[in-house]
């Protein structure tokens, strides 16, 4: 199963990330994880929160270019060995990882993965019985 990730287009302008976050800061929303990557002209802020639909609505109201998309959340034991093993399962199935970020939580590492083939990735998760988190499970961590 997949979870909703919000991607926000950000120009490389001083203070812009701050402005975007201040739109959201007054709401009672929990940030689960966030990452910003950049090129020379712009970046993309990727955000997973406790209320993705509220966040996207607020962003649209403020005219921010953003969209909702699907990523996988997989929980593994926080060891390099487990991390390597998990990625290898995807590689052996011929699946590319387009990008990934992670956060750790009481001995577990939660990998947020975007692959080039979501159906095949789900097959791998089922076949090897990986710990695939739903939005609710992620929220209850």
């Amino acid at each position, binding site marked *: 199963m997949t979870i909703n990730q919000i991607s926000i287009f950000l120009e490389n302008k001083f203070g812009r990330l701050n402005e975007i976050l201040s739109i959201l800061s007054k709401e009672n929303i929990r940030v689960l994880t966030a990452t910003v990557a950049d090129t020379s002209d712009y970046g993309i802020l990727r955000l997973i929160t406790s209320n993705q639909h509220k966040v996207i609505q607020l962003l649209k109201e403020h*005219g921010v270019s953003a969209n909702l*998309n699907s990523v996988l959340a997989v929980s593994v034991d926080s060891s390099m060995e487990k991390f390597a093993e998990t990625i290898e399962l995807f590689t052996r199935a011929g699946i590319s990882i387009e990008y990934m970020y992670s956060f750790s939580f009481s001995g577990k590492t939660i990998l947020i993965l975007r692959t080039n083939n979501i159906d095949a990735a789900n097959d791998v998760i089922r076949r090897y019985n990986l710990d695939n988190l739903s939005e609710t499970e992620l929220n209850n961590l």
Partner: protein
Amino acid sequence: MTEKYWEEEIETMSRPDLEKLQLERLKNTVKQAMNSPFYKKLFAEKGLSPDSINSLDDIKKFPFTTKEDLRSNYPFGFAAVPMEKVVRLHSSSGTTGNPTVVLHTQKDLDTWANQVARCMYMVGVRNTDVFQNTSGYGMFTGGLGYQYGAERLGCLTVPAAAGNSKRQIKFIRDFGTTVLHTIPSYATRLAEVIQEEGLDPRKDTKLRIMCVGAEPHSEEQRKRIEELLGLKAYNCFGMSEMNGPGVAFECQEQNGLHIWEDLVLVEIINPETLEPVKEGEVGEMVLTTLCREAMPLIRYRTRDLTSILPGQCPCGRTHRRISRIKGRSDDMMIVKGVNIFPIQIERILMNFKELGMNYLITIDTIGNNDEMLVEVELGDLHTDDYTKLQALTKEITRQLKDEILLTPKVKLVEKGTLPVSEGKAVRVKDLRKNH
């Protein structure tokens, strides 16, 4: 008024009759113009009078009038009636030097209201329609010009004025607005907000016609507006010096704008040689008012580039059609020796569904070279994949290069971040030292 025409007799008048009417009105206009300090002096110097006009071609004996003339005779140097007969003044933005002022008698305003009503009737607006005007009111002619025109036609008019999209949408829904007037850059903004409110313009509004004017825009932009809002959009040409909206307007064929030749005399000239271009060729439009009392203008150089479309329009109107405005003779950019008009760039950008409507062209000297930067607003984010965003930038660059023959730097920017001035989008910034 007939089923199809507001003024059938005038709109479908035979060419010889129309030209006879023009000749008579041209003589009167020259006579009227001589009452103004500016033309009185000018015509005396050149030995010109109404007797100089024996055919329409004799207009060529008269010198051109330019925006500079209007500015240097600010504010009342063109008044051709005693000031007590003047009832309204409109003024265009004076970004450099004095603004230009246009004066109207009550009769001028009546003629103009009728002219706008004629245009709106032509695209199918009737007295049963609810017309909402999103133009700024005040000095900008798109406000009051449309207001009086729509009232003359008999519409229920909603003078919403500019801005506050949520309020505009509330009016559209509460009052059952069927006809809108907007500038092109605002049309898409409105469509976006309608979408954000979770509404479908086709189901949740009664909109059916949009009059789009004040900024030159491309066919591609029209199609997007029609698609987004589920209505028919018609292109309107106007300029405050020639009253304002309604100088030329598309009919339901959407193929060229009928210019009302009972009200203006049209010439198309080469802006460099000042000679008339061959029929059908692009040049600068030069207009002479034919009915104005307070402020007749003789051979006014509009700076707008267009051409006369050959042949007769299937709609039956005999007034000739001009093409969409192709740019302004004064906004042609010369970059690395290439002549470029902003509208060429716009046409390419509008083909990309991923992009919004606003763009800004900046030209600057980097080292010894002129460089062009095209910033364009992204629409809703269509992807969260960098490679796709980079591929988009690359494809825009490639298509622009094919069109303008030099390679601009293309930069995607966030929605709503490019500058807007007095409700009109700023399209070009030339930072080069010698410009």
